[in-house]
Structures are given as C-alpha cells and as structure tokens.
C-alpha cells in the first residue's frame, strides 16, 4: 500500500494507526516475482505466489479468535443453532402465510421465539447441576460448576428484556438471578463481590476466629446487598457463637484473668470448712425436714420477637455449682445471646419475601402475586425494624458482631449509604436497589434513570463488554444493542439475537426489516445474516451451514450462495456430492452441472452425463469412435468395455456412442461364435454387425 494514500486513488483513505504487518510463511525461495490476490470462500484470501522456479497457492484466513471461546466451541455453537433457527424461520413463514400479512406478530408469537431462545441458550453452556458432594463442605461458600461465558450472559440478558413476556413483571428478580450467575465474569475487569468472596474463601482455612475478621462482616453485607441469601446464611452459620468450643476459646483469655486474680475464691473444696470461733446453729422447727439444696438463680432471656429456632435461648436456668462453672456459664449465656442474635438475623434473611414465580431450592419465600408479596414484604420489614430497636444489642458484648449484624439490618432496611458501601460495581449497586429500595418497581423508563444514577455513584475507569449491551438495552435503543452485540460478541450473536429483538415490538420489526438505501437495498436483518454466512463460509467445516442463512435472505442470499458454491474447491468426490446435494435442495441446477465437470476419463463421462451436457458427450464419443476405429486388441477392449457400458445406457444414447455400444454387442457375439459355434449365436452376431453398419450409415 503506498504511503500517500489520501486522494491518490485509494478507495478508502487510511486513518488512525499504521496497518499491522503479518508475516506470511509460504516456503518459496525469494525473490517472488509475481503475486496475485483474490477472494476465496468467506473471509479467506487466495494468494498465488510465483518465484522464478516454483509457484504456490496460500490461503489466508482473516478472522480473529475470541478470547473466551475457542474456535472449536464456536463451531459447536454454529452447528447447534442451525436447527432452532431453521425451525423459527419456517414457523414465521407459515404463520405469515396463514394470516396473509407480512408481519407474523400476534399475541403468542413470542412463545415461539422463547422456545428458540431457550434452545440456543442451552448451546452456550448449559447450567447443568453439579454432582452434589456426599459430604457438604461447610467452608465452601462459593460454588462454581462451570465457567460462565459472556456470550451466554449477553444472550440471557437480551432474552430477559425482549422475549420472556411472562417474566416482565418480575424483571428485577430475573436481573438478580442474572447477576448471581454472571458476576464472576465482571471480575475480569472490575473488583466485584464474587471476586472478593473467592479471595476470602481461599484464606478461610487459616482464619481462627472468623467474626473478628472485618472482611467477614464486609462480605456478609456485600453478599446480602445483591441478594445472595444462601451464601449469607451459610457464612453467618460459620459465626463462632455456633461452636461452643470455639466460643470457649474466645472467652478463655478473659476468664483466665478472673480465675487467676481470685484463685482463692475459686478453689475447689475438698473437705468441710474449718471450725470457726462461733458456730451458728439453726434450730429447726419440729416436724420440718432439713433443707438440703443449693441456692438457685434463674436467668431468663427474653426471646427476640421473631426468633423461631428452638435452639435459640428462650429461658436459661442453671445452678451455681461453683465459681469456675459460674463464670463459664455466664460467658455461655452471653454467647447464647450472641448466637440468638446471629440466628435471628439469619432467619430473617432466609425468610426474605421474593417476587418470583418459582423457588428453585434457594432461600427466601417466593410469592407469585403482587398483593401477597407486598403484604408479606411489609410484615418482614416491620420485623426487621422491631429487631433493630430491641434492647438485646446493648446486652450483647461482642461489639464486632453487633455492628456487623446491625449493618446487615441496615441493608435490609434499604439504607442507601450502606448499600453503596457494600457493593463494588455499578451493576451490583443497581441490583441492590431493586432488592431493598424499590422492591415493587417498575417500568423500564425508571430503570434507565436508576442505572444512570448508579453509574454516577460508582464511576469506573474501564468497561466490561457486557456493560455497553446492558446500557443499550436499558435505553431501549435497538440500534445500540445491535451495534454492541456486533462489536463485542461478533456476527453469530447479532444474526441470532435479532430474532429476539423483534419478538415483541412491531416498531423494532419495522426498523430491522425495512429496506435501506444505504445498505444497498437490503434490511438490517439481512445484512447481519449475510455477514454471519460469510463467517461460516470461511471454514471448510461450517460452510455447509451457510446456505441455510443465505436462503433466508431475500435480496442477496441466492446470489451469494451461487458465489459460495462456485468457490468451493473440489478435491474429494464426497465433498463434491455434498455440494451437489446443496444445489439440489436449493434448485441451483446450472451450478451443479458446472461443478460436476471434473475428474478422470470414466468419471468424467459419468459427470458429463449427470450434467446433461450432450455436446461435450458427443465430442467424447467422436474421439472414442476414432480410437476404437484404429484397432483395438481383445486385451484393451476389456478396458473399454466398462466405459462403453457406462456411456451407452439405452436411456441416453450419446451420439456416436450408440455405435460403440452396438459394436460391443457385436464383439461379444463374435467371441461366442468362436467358442460355441452355434448357428443361433452366429445369427445374433450377424444381426449385431448389421446394426453396426446401420449406425455407420
């Protein structure tokens, strides 16, 4: 490329960075004297290199590999998406034929699209249930059975917003689930709650007293803010107050000090007290038995209003056996109170009302109807408020636990500052708003303005590829969504997701199917399908899929399909037959007859017959006729026989070949004559000869 491109005959002026140079390994000795470049199938270039002594043809592929999904997986996705795509197209055309309108949109079209969407979604890495371990490891907080991909995250996001009409009312809850599944993806570019949890889990085995670690409380509030109730409850149960031995470990130091200072007091008695100066005698009344019991003290801890767990302390009474026991039991009582508080909060969390169609083995109580949900939500909130105001917080002496738990309550009460503190990324903050601040929301307009608010609160220096898509969807800008899909995820997603975008909206349908002058008279839908087909055509294994997409393109599809078929290199018979099969399916007879003209002598004749090229066959027959005429020995006639057999099917006699066919019959009879000497056979031979002569005339 010359350096002075601008205005000097370049079709597109070069702007920006210098072009990248890639070395080409062709193995030819320099100098190369000539080079020709042409397009091969799809995005591959055909380079023909000529040096002084040799020449070579090199194919150059012009595609880049996705960092997340290897090529092999892309091919698997491409294979799998053919059937759902074809099914949806055929349904679309049958419905529009039935309704006699170009637009197939009626009330339940989206159900077809949803089915399509689910099938495609399952290709992108199914959410298979992991084999559950026999022994549940209490210290495993975050489980991950399969590495999620951004592609699947993007697909699901589009499905949530555009297709699934049933879930429109619980859109926020679906977003909560979505974030729970894909928060780990965002970790690659940002600090996220998932990332923090994973880090914490690594250190978990080394932490002795978990509730003394500030990160424990920090992560509890983070996980709660985005609604990962299972993780929160599991983590709360790791609290030291659940394990009595661990509790005594914690209390050991304080207790030790007391015991040492007053060791005399806590000495255990081994004999009766020594005699004193004065002995007090208690004179018993007559008829009364001596009392023989220790003094009793009873301590009653009032139950928290919502504590339902039976293990929580409701009333504790114990007898003071001796001093050491007494102290230990007081400590235990404090521990039980602490544990009671932890458990109360855990119970409240696990009872959080969720507006969700089905509970899938997760914590939280699901409500299908909005009034029920609102009712129980308000009840739940009042219980939290009540607990927040209760006097137990003062009685509990572990300050860290109290602060941590009260912060959790603040999150559940929807304290904006707490939520903002607890979350890392704007999407996380956004989700926490749905959960605790606006549980009864909302239309998509307010969702968009909320998102902008969250972005302002959590500004980020870099962006994740899902972020742009999310903003585009919230802004309800179909063109932006398409552009983001295409830029970040490539043509496969655009070609298939377009079906989702038009599922519910007549407006999007018009926008995407409208023929555009600037695209050369084709619609946006067609453009993206063509682009995807081009990608498919670039690979030897996927090009066979391309016709399915090309034929769904009304304007340019067939032209490109013909082009594609012409460009196929044919080295193997089987590949050739597969090509012809495609031609047969799409009624492209003229192409198949051109493809067929290749091969060996015998094979060539066969293919010419298939191609019904009678002029070529006539010429061949003429040559054959000439060579047979020269002289054929019996030996070589054996070779010719098969060929003549092939050529001279009675159904399609080809020119002079008819003669050869009869000549063969004559030859055969002649042989029989020499062997058998029967008059009947001799007569046949003469008959054959007559026929030969007749043909010659």
């Amino acid at each position, binding site marked *: 490329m010359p350096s002075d491109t601008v205005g000097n005959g370049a079709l597109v002026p070069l702007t920006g960075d210098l072009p990248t140079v890639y070395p080409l390994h062709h193995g030819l000795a320099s100098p190369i004297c000539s080079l020709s470049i042409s397009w091969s199938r799809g995005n591959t270039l055909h380079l023909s290199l000529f040096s002084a002594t040799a020449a070579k043809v090199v194919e150059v592929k012009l595609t880049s590999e996705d960092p997340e999904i290897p*090529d*092999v997986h892309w*091919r*698997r996705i491409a*294979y799998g998406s*053919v*059937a759902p795509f*074809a099914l949806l197209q055929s349904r679309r055309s049958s419905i529009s034929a039935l309704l006699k309108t170009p637009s197939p949109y009626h009330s339940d079209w989206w159900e077809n699209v949803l089915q399509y969407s689910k099938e495609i979604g399952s290709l992108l890495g199914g959410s298979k249930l992991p084999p559950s371990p026999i022994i549940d490891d209490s210290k495993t907080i975050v489980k991950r059975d399969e590495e999620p991909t951004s592609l699947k995250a993007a697909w699901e996001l589009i499905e949530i917003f555009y297709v699934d009409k049933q879930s429109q009312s619980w859109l926020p809850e679906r977003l909560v689930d979505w974030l729970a599944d894909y928060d780990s993806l965002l970790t690659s570019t940002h600090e996220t709650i998932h990332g923090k949890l994973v880090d914490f889990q690594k250190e978990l085995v080394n932490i002795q007293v978990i509730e003394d670690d500030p990160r424990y409380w920090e992560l509890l509030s983070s996980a709660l803010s985005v609604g990962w109730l299972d993780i929160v409850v599991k983590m709360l149960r790791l609290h030291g107050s659940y394990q009595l031995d661990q509790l005594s470990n914690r209390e050991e130091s304080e207790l030790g000090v007391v015991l040492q200072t007053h060791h005399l007091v806590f000495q255990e008695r081994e004999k009766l007290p020594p005699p004193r100066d004065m002995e007090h005698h208690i004179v018993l009344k007559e008829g009364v038995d001596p009392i023989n019991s220790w003094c009793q003290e009873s301590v009653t801890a009032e139950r928290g209003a919502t504590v339902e767990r039976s293990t929580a302390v409701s009333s504790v009474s114990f007898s003071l056996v001796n001093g050491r026991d007494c102290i230990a039991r007081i400590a235990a009582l404090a521990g039980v109170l602490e544990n009671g508080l932890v458990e109360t909060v855990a119970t409240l969390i696990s009872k959080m009302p969720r507006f969700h169609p089905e509970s899938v083995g997760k914590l939280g109580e699901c409500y299908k109807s909005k009034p029920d949900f609102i009712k129980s939500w308000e009840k739940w909130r009042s219980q939290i408020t009540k607990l927040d105001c209760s006097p137990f917080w003062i009685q509990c002496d572990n300050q860290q636990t109290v602060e941590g738990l009260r912060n959790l309550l603040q999150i559940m009460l929807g304290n904006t500052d707490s939520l903002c503190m607890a979350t890392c990324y704007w999407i996380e903050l956004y989700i926490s708003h749905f959960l605790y601040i606006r549980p009864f929301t909302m239309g998509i307009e307010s969702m968009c303005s909320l998102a902008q608010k969250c972005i302002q609160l959590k500004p980020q220096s870099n962006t994740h590829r899902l972020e742009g898509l999310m903003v585009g969807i919230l802004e309800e800008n179909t063109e932006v969504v398409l552009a983001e899909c295409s830029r970040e995820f490539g043509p496969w997603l655009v070609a298939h997701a377009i079906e989702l975008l038009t599922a519910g909206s007549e407006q999007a349908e018009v926008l995407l199917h409208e023929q555009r002058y600037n695209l050369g008279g084709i619609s946006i839908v067609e453009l993206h399908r063509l682009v995807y087909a081009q990608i498919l055509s670039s*690979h*030897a*294994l996927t090009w*066979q899929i391309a016709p399915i997409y090309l034929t769904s393109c009304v304007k340019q599809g067939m032209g490109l399909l013909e082009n594609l078929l012409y460009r196929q290199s044919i*080295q*193997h*018979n*089987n590949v050739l*037959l*597969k090509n012809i*099969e495609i031609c*047969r399916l799409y009624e492209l007879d003229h192409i198949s007859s051109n493809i067929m003209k290749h*091969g*060996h*002598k*015998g*094979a060539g004749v*066969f293919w010419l*017959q*298939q191609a*019904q090229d009678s002029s070529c066959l006539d010429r061949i027959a003429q040559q054959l006729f000439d060579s047979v005429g020269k002289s054929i020995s019996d030996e070589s006639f*054996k*070779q*010719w*026989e*098969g*060929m003549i*057999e*092939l050529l001279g*099917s*009675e*159904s399609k006699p080809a020119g002079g070949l008819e003669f050869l066919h009869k000549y063969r019959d004559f030859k055969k009879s002649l042989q029989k004559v020499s062997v058998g000497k029967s008059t009947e056979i001799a007569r046949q031979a003469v008959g054959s000869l007559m026929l030969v002569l007749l043909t010659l005339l």
Partner: protein
Amino acid sequence: MAATAMHKFPQDQYVDAVRWLPQLSPLDRFAVLALFDFDSDASSIQIHSLTPNPFSLQPQFSWSSPSRISSLKTSLFLQKPLIVASTAAGSLHLLFADSSDASFDSEVSLPEGTLHSVPASSVDLMDGGVECVTVGEDGKINLVGVGESNLSCRRLFDSGGLVSYTAARWASSVEFATGGYGFSLQWWDQRKPGGPVSNFKGNWDKKLSSGIVHSIDIHPSRKHTCLAGGSLGTVFAWDLRWQQQPIILSGAGAGTGSGNTMIQSICDSEVWEVQYDRCIKSNTSSTRILPSMICSEDGILAVIEQGEEPVELLAEACAINSFDIDRHNPSDVICSLEWEAVAILTRQ
C-alpha cells in the same frame, strides 16, 4: 425396536470414518475413529474406549496418518485386532492392535503411489484378515496379502481410468464385488483374471439420471446376492442368478421397475454406507432380501426390509457419513456425524 438410546460425543475434529474394534473380552469395548483436523491439516486414527457407567467414549491411543483416511475396516488377524486404512494419497496402512488393551502394536504400510494414483480409494479386508482388496477411481484393483511384518501386493486389473471403482467387498476367499459409476457392479473371481466375471449396469429407470455406488455388503450366508447403496437414496440388491434385474429396496427410482411396486423411499440423497442388519432375525422366506441398515447425506439412519415399512433410527440435521454395527452386540450401532461428532445407538 422403537426404543433406542442415543449418546452423542463431540470430537472437535471431522470424523472421516468410524468402526467397532472386534471385541477382545466382553468387558472391554473399543471404537476406531478416523479423524481429520481441518485447521492443522492433520489426520489420525484413534482408538476410543467405551465405558457404560457413566456412558462415555474416551480416546485411548492415537496414530497419526500421513494423509486423510478414505476408507477404514477392522477385522481379527491371528486373534489380534487389525485395522486397515486407505488414505486419500493412495497409501495403505495396516495397524495391529494389542489383544489385551487395544494399544497399537505395529504398523505395516504401502507408500503412496504403489497402489493407486488418484485420491479416494476403497479397501475391504477379508474375514480373518488374510487378504485385502483395494480399488480406486483410477480403475486399478489390487490384492494385498497380509503378513505381520510385510505385505505382498499384486494388481488384478487396471482399467486405465476408463472405469472407476468406488467400493469393494469380499464375498468369499476368492470372489469379491466392486461398485462404481452409473450404479454399476462388477463381480470378480481371482481364479479368472483379466476382467470382471460378471457386470451389472443399473439403468432400470429411464427417467432418472444414474448415480454412484458408495457401499456394498454381502451376507456370508447368501454369497450370490450383492447389496449396494448409492446416489439418490438408492439401495438395491443384485442377485447373480438373475443378473439384469435388480431388486430395488429404496430410492428415487423405486417403484418403476417391474416387480418393485410400492417401495418406500426413506431418503433421496446419497446413501453413504449400507450393511446387513445382524440384529433382526428375519423369519421370512429365503427368497426375500435380508434386512439392512443405511445412513445418508440427509441425516437418516434407518433399517430397510424388503416389503416392509422402513424403520428410522435417527434423523439428524446433518449428514451421517458412516456407521458400523457391532458384530458381537448387533443392537449397538456407532455412526459418525458431519458436524464433528460420533453417536452411539443402543437398540432395545
């Protein structure tokens, strides 16, 4: 028959051919896959072991082939599994596997150029593995004697490219059949060299153009009948005793030939492979053709029987390029799919 369990195993490479390895012990089951990687241009033969619980197919041993495999057969040779493969470059490779763990023991080969001059040749191995026949589009027919360390090769016939052969199958220790263009079949006898003993040209239908024979099978109990599958969904049987009248079992041309009325056609594209189905015990009279299984370009795997409705075992969105019925468990079928996968069917 209707209840079948199907398992798919993606391979991430194109599967050129697939065979069961003759069973060594009832517990170990192995399949042989001929794979081709389009990105690196590398081809290989792999032995995969099949485990029932959980059902999985795991690669065990791999042998890299110098060129793409065009035809693959397996047999037993002196109690050892033997794999024979012909390549697109025209070379022939014999791989002897270990009789205990199916690992590759030794390999003997004939380099390219010795047997065939053009791509795509077909090979068949005699039962017991003593001799191979290879045929090619160049019209050459070679017989290769198998020994553990060396191979002996002789050319039986050379048509000089005037007739091309695309399929071959042994009928007995001296006879075999070949197939080629124009639905043609040839019958050969080693005792009568110099040309085919018998020739059949399929031109039973005047309206339709003819096609290619892709695969032949001959049942050991009926050596006079040659079963062939080819273009346009055609499956026909050629009985040497009624030479010019084929019995059409399926296909576009079905129904027009005399005595072949009302024949169902299960597919109308290329039939890539045909084998007698050893699973079905046919109790019908000996004049009927035994039931057979076919796979096709339009993704059909089916059992067809003369005079019966065809039974579809599998209908895929992509082509099924080859299949093999397990000799020891005829209810198990392995097949290779165009979209880089292998499927295993278990019939109940």
